[in-house]
């Protein structure tokens, strides 16, 4: 079954962190980046910004590692979801997530992760530069492939020009 996913193109990210704001407001009614499910990781001195969020892994380490079986796939949405009635707050999922996309909120004593906002992720909706977008899972690589093809093409052309001595 095909689902939509967050596609992150960090090259386009301006580093503004609006995604963090709208995520926390949507889920908690507050502005607080430590309550956002998406986080922009920055290397300011290099001008590099990378939004990190849950990849909704098919074989999710958090789901596998959870000792109370509180993490399961929401089949309708294609998201990996936490059942807070079962969650014991052990943070094992935080340790095993290879993307650092599972977060523990001390004040609320629970973990949080991207739930795709029930099919209308606010981060993607507000990101005007499309660094975060919500696309069909099968289409995630399409745009990247096209961009890579363009780069190859241009490299090829300049190599040809070089050979021709222009």
């Amino acid at each position, binding site marked *: 079954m095909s689902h939509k996913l967050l596609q992150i193109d960090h090259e386009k990210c*301006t580093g503004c962190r609006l995604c963090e704001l709208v995520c926390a407001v949507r889920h908690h*009614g*507050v502005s*607080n*980046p*430590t309550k956002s499910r998406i986080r922009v990781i920055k290397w300011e001195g290099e001008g590099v*910004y990378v939004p990190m969020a849950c990849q909704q892994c098919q074989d999710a380490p958090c789901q596998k590692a959870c000792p109370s079986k509180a993490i399961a796939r929401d089949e309708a949405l294609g998201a990996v979801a936490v059942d807070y009635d079962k969650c014991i707050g052990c943070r094992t999922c935080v340790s095993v997530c290879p993307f650092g996309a599972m977060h523990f909120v001390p*004040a609320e004593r629970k973990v949080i992760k991207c739930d795709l906002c029930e099919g209308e992720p*606010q981060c993607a909706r507000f990101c*005007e530069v499309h660094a975060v977008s919500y696309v069909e899972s099968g289409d995630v690589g399409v745009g990247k492939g096209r961009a890579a093809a363009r780069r190859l093409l241009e490299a090829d052309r300049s190599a040809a020009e070089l050979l021709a001595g222009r």
Partner: protein
Amino acid sequence: MPLSRKIGYVNLTTGDISVQPIPLEMRRRFLGGRGLDAYLLYNHVPQGADPLGPDNVLLISGGLLTATCASATARTHVMAKSALTGLLGSANMGGFFAPELAWAGFHHLVIKGKASKPVYLYVHDGRIEIRDASRVWGKTTTEAQAAIREELGDDEVKSLVCGPAGEKLVRFANVMTGIKNAAGRTGMGCIMGSKNLKAVAARGTMDIRIAHPVEALEHNKRFIEQITSSKVNQTQGTLGTPFIWGATNSWGGVRTRNFQYNQLEYADDVEPERIDEIATETMGPYHMTGCYACQVHCRAQYKIPSGPYKGKYDEGPEYTSQGAFAGEPDCRSAETVLVGNHLVDQYGVDNLEIGSLISWAMELYELGILTKEQTGGLDLRFGNDEALLEMIHRICRRDGWLANALADGGVAASEAIGKNSFDYLIQVKGMSNLHSDERATPGLALNIATASRGSDHLRSRPAIDLYHLPEPVLRKIYGSPVPYDGPLSSEHTEYIGKPWQVFWQENCYMAVDCLGICKYHTVFLGATHPNFEDWPTVIRLNTGLEFTPREIWDVAERANMMERLFNLREGLTRRDARKGDTLNHRYFDEPCRRGAPGVVGLKIDRERFDKMVDEFYVHKGLDADGVPKPETLARLGLDHEPSRVV
């Protein structure tokens, strides 16, 4: 709630720290940000205080809407008695500091006294610590921020810092955060240096509860669409502020050769498109970056493409760096602009002021008022890129007689240089002008002459005057929230109606500075952007507070008057060439020599300018000397200041 944010009082002499709430009454009177800072400044700085002494007070703030769903609430305000002018010191910057300060529980910091050795403040979840800065002192702005993160072991810490120029007490050193965000004007970094305060570091995890989150999100979405759908912001998001410099240069509205000319010729290498080309070549096609939660992303990233600084990363350059390192000194190399921009960012110094002063020195040198001996052997003529960059280093290090004199600011330097050097200093209230030429635009000339922090475009500039909007459109904008049925003119060379426009813009810009919003999100460059009529909704949805457009206007008028009261107390008089609401004589005596046909030959008419000031004073409720009438103070509730509520 934004309303739960506190004021932190720090005394660096005694080490005393206290945290106080902000009474609702003060929110209703001043909103927050620059407005409440103006109140705190008037109430906490004793009359006649030495700007560099322990009695001066450094104020750091976010606005009422900082880090809420209000489109672009990144702005940090910094205020003190100015190290440069001795009048109001006030500067505003974007970046990510103010939101972090708000998440750490604070909207305002009031920093008094002087530390006995270098320190920095660490503000974290409701607490303020004074920490030893011996490992941070001496570092450049970016090195200092990195060192604090390393020391605190937290990459999410945001700091505002002074650089080596602030430590050296350069009177126009700035306060900086991130790579290039600068509270650049009036020498706020010098105040930090004078207090042995290297930095204020903030890190917060405290909720800012949004009053009506669902509606606030939806409103924010529409707000953002309004902002990003405008052509001017789309261009800003592609070319940044260099586009304004390029556009202004094309018709002859920038200063060249210290105001001798009003257009830089043969400027191809420093045009916005060329700067954009370099950014693309060095940082790729997506090289624009932005401040907190803003979708305009008007700041370019670049690496210096060639020369001894090749490969150094920086951001910008903005209009001011093009003016400072190309237009004014008559240099025409992108590399010089990008290197100059990088140096001022690292030293932490106002690009605008340093560029103006070097260009002033260049004219004095060419006139023979300054000798080669006085310039320390530098051939300080216009168009000498190497001499320009060398002077940046020397001023920031106070290296040599001339550099040391210039580091004290233009007015003080004119006394050291002597002769008729002051006549050539393009300043108002002791602060150099933006690198724009207002001889063709009387409304803009009135703006810089009367701006509260000295010659400045961000206090009251009716920039949309240049768009020649039809009069009914001007009436729609300038006719609310206070009715105005006086004259208005679509013609930018006119004098009529301009005092009202400047008065309206002064209140508009004060309001955004109180709210913590960027000026690109109000009627500055975009005529259709949000203003008084739009802000009540965004305030209500985010804070729960009810304001009418008129009440926001009243807050702005009150806060502007507070700044005026401070300036009057510290020596402003209407016609004082160094501290008054006046312009350099060149505005009246020397006509524009370049530019569009309608611009060549224009200068400001002294008599009509004087009438504009008179009329502006009437709008503000001042007498003919520029002093508020008792009934004006009573109307604004300022007849019992200082009232010391906070």
